[in-house]
């Protein structure tokens, strides 16, 4: 498969949606792209960074999404086309800057925000539709229905952004971002970028400093005028189209990947002659005249979209203005309960909705087919629960925290954060994390709890963040805790990687997105400079780590930091083999008997530890064992043996 910078106009390339978006940005001649990693958006900047030096653009993994967007805005102000891409949570992080940016307007360089939503929260903490922010903040918004559109829309949005002088937004979803499809590519502009920030005091202008939201009222009015112009452009956009009979019995209104589900559903039901599909690509502001014309085709409308009823409600608002004779009689969708307003959609859901509305029969296969297919698929899959990788340092860290909290005996607990270690909520982290919200919230929540001694609160609090999350947004909460003398311990699980999203560099790593070395930030010195007491430990030294935690929790005076340093196993094993050969001495293993009760396979739960039911003994799965040897340290019988490999 070709790299996104392939210079072969007119050829068809197999790209994942995120690569198609990146290619679209290259074809638009961007010079600057900044982002913070987050699934499902990460490959947009990742693929741009991989070719940045070659194509002469700048790319950056920024410390967080807000800084990424501000940095990209700086480029736009200096006349450089700029892109920032993020998952839905990132849009929340940038929202304050964004709300001001729509008022200030962008610079001469077009500026595009790509938001990748994650319906069903496959790789997210929350499920959230970011399209409403376009309506809330007045941002022109497009939604690609396939991979070609992902590229073409991205490219076109830069032109639109420059024409309107406002940021434009592309909303993608996981199934576009990570699925792969054919994209016919266009020309690369080979642009020579020249950056210059034009003098701010333009005496002819009423407003001496252009890039600011004030005076708010006239700028707000101006923004609405920009949106009106966007609507006019959308009326004739090729990204909106209708397929189906002249006057269908049922009209589906859809957008994004739901366009593909809708088409599949209509084909599967063989209802092409009865059901029409209005596919919208420009979803905010809605091209009202275009939509009205097509609404007139049918008395029955079904909205198919992920996640919120965004188009559904916008069209219904619009319909309220239509005269009675023009208004369609029935709207189906999330409001009517025919489509769920949560989770992912798929062709089956659409088929069922159409069946209910039109009363058509549909029996594609035997009733028990799905059960049989599931059983067959399961027979090929090893039985494993979601957990930390074999050899992961987080397992050791949570084991140490669990043990220390139990020994401490004051019913202490962990506030969790976003990263691989978010699994600390579940069995692989021994159910230790008791809160989990957005990035950086572990120390934030802890800093509040740490003030409650005045109300009788005496439970120790461990706030757990990863190293990348620490820089992203945990730092302000740490400062807040230290300065206000909040009683909690910040545990930084420093594995020197942004592991969950694909090992992007962060300020602690000493490497930039463009693979250039830079001076890493000294996390320990940074924490000490704030006045926090800092202890360093290696989580694989369980005894030492437990001692450090017990000592730190006992201090009860201000905010402390425990840095647990141990590199990500997935990074380590790229360059070195397993450090230990690990095996079970079945003579010593006592399995379920008193004195053990299957500690390793019942509680410790490394995926490489397996319970041999027939022998009633533990065993090691050599195929996946990372050879970390940690299980040898927790086995109460000394039955797990590690030998230097």
């Amino acid at each position, binding site marked *: 498969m070709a790299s996104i910078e392939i210079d072969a106009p007119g050829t068809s390339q197999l790209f994942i949606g995120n690569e198609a978006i990146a290619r679209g940005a290259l074809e638009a001649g961007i010079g600057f792209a900044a982002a913070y990693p987050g699934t499902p958006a990460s490959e947009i900047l990742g693929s741009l960074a991989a070719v940045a030096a070659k194509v002469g653009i700048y790319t950056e993994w920024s410390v967080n999404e807000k800084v990424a967007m501000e940095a990209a805005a700086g480029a736009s102000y200096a006349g450089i086309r700029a892109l920032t891409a993020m998952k839905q949570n990132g849009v929340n992080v940038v929202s304050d800057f964004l709300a001001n940016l729509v008022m200030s307007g962008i610079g001469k360089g077009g500026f595009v925000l790509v938001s990748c939503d994650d319906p069903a929260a496959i790789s997210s903490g929350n499920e959230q539709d970011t399209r409403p922010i376009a309506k809330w903040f007045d941002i022109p918004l497009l939604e690609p229905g396939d991979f070609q559109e992902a590229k073409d829309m991205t490219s076109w949005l830069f032109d639109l952004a420059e024409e309107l002088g406002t940021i434009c937004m592309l909303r993608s979803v996981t199934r576009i971002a990570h699925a792969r499809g054919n994209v016919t590519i266009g020309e690369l502009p080979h642009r020579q970028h020249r950056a210059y920030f034009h003098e701010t005091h333009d005496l002819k202008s009423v407003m001496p400093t252009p890039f600011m939201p004030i005076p708010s009222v006239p700028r707000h009015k101006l923004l609405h005028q920009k949106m009106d112009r966007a609507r006019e452009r959308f009326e004739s956009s090729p990204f909106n189209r209708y397929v189906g009979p002249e006057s269908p019995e049922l009209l589906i209104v859809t957008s994004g990947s739901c366009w593909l589900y809708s088409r599949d559903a209509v084909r599967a039901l063989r209802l092409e002659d009865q059901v029409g599909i209005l596919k919208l690509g420009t979803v905010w502001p809605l091209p009202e005249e275009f939509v009205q014309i097509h609404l007139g085709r049918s008395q029955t409308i079904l909205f198919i979209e992920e996640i919120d009823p965004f188009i559904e409600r916008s069209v219904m608002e619009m319909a309220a203005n239509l005269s009675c004779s023009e208004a369609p009689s029935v709207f189906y969708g999330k409001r009517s309960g025919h489509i769920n307003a949560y989770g992912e959609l798929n062709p089956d859901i659409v088929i069922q909705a159409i069946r209910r509305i039109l009363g058509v029969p549909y029996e594609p296969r035997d009733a028990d087919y799905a059960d049989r297919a599931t059983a067959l698929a399961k027979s090929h899959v090893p039985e494993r629960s979601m957990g930390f990788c074999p050899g992961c340092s987080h397992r050791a860290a949570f084991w140490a925290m669990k043990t220390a909290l*139990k*020994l401490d005996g004051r019913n202490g607990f962990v506030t969790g954060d976003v990263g691989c270690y978010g699994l600390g909520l579940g069995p692989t982290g021994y159910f230790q994390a008791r809160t989990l919200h957005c990035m950086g919230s572990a120390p934030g929540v802890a800093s509040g709890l740490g003030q409650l001694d005045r109300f009788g609160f005496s439970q120790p609090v461990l706030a757990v963040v990863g190293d990348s999350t620490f820089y992203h947004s945990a730092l302000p909460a740490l400062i807040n805790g230290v300065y206000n003398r909040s009683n909690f311990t910040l545990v930084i699980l420093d594995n020197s990687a942004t592991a969950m999203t694909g090992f992007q560099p962060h300020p602690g790593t000493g490497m930039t997105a463009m693979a250039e070395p830079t001076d890493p930030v000294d996390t320990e010195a940074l924490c000490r400079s704030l006045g926090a007491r800092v202890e360093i430990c290696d989580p694989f030294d369980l005894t030492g780590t437990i001692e450090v935690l017990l000592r730190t929790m006992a201090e009860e005076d201000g905010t402390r930091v425990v840095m647990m340093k141990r590199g990500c196993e997935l990074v380590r094993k790229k360059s070195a083999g397993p450090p230990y050969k690990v095996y079970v001495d079945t003579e010593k293993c*006592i399995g*379920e*008997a*008193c004195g053990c*009760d299957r*500690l390793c396979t*019942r*509680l410790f739960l490394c995926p490489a530890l397996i319970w041999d039911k027939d022998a009633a003994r533990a065993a090691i799965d050599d195929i996946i064992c990372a050879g970390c040897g940690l299980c040898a340290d927790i086995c109460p019988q000394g039955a797990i043996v590690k030998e230097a490999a």
Partner: protein
Amino acid sequence: MSDEARGCRELFNEVIDAGLCTLCGACTGVCPYLVHYKGRVALLDNCTVADGRCYRHCPRTYSDLNEVSQKVFGVPFQADELGVVRETLLARSTDQEIQHKGQDGGTVTGLLAVALADGFIEGVVETAMADDKSPQGVVARSRQELLQCAGNSYEPSPVLERLNRVTRESNEKLAVVGLPCQTFAVSKMKAYPAARDMNIDNVRLVIGLFCGWVLTGGFHQFLQEKFDLSRVVKFDIPHHPGNTFDVYYESGKESVELDEIRRFISPGCSYCWDMTAEFADISVGSGRAKFRGWNTVIVRSEAGAELVERARARGALETRPLPEENETHLKKVMRDKKRRILSQIIARTGDRSDLLYLGLPDEIVSRLLT
């Protein structure tokens, strides 16, 4: 209460969370889940074993005292004030160094030194005080190591946790020195031995120490705040008419009023009816005011009698019969205590047939209560 096989969940419900735990250490050191940590038994994770040694050997889970007595002494449980008695004595070590370091007459150290020297045992599981004077279970294998264990900390020591480990790790012949609750737990280990992982038959001798109560729940912190513990050489609560807790330095002593430390008395001790370690081979207490520097000794078993005889013959132990006045007093104290504790237990359970951990025939209960 019943005598069904149970595990750590029931142990917590019936003993630890019920305020009966004496921190003897019998349930710790056998598995990865129960850990003795800073004067508390911590449960590190859930365990699903239905028949756990933790529950089986706990001195505060239900025990049929007759059955245990039969298995340990070969006779039914003696409901008398002092339990099974072969001989009562006053005794003291003839070794000046042992006498000096010992709590009273140094009888325990003196006896054990003889047992070690004769090869009757190879190690003694007992309590030594760390530098900060917190008690910890150790194995003493020489006279010198024995001397380091002399003296009383008045805090509960998880000496049985050490026993659990050493009986798993080694095949040595052992003596155990413990409080009444601990000697009873050892009896339960002998009466209901674990299927594996424990060579309990290697415990050849159990020496019990008279005990009224131990001090827990912040007592160590109280000591740390009041005294320079690294310089302390001995603690003592002198017998009647003394009313102080004495802290000895090389240079002299400091005292606190006994009333000041009563609040630290372990709640579990208030349900204990055994002050003289009735399930030990030999029980040792102080000689009371009139016989300062002597120990009161109750010889109970054949093994105990043999060792006392050997020590006397060796000239290592000086003994004299326990004066009748002392014995009468001791019996009265024990009788009163047993009656008081039984009444207290019945007041708690509201049922004469439910005596918490004490499995006693009703006629014995009746006799003790009258």
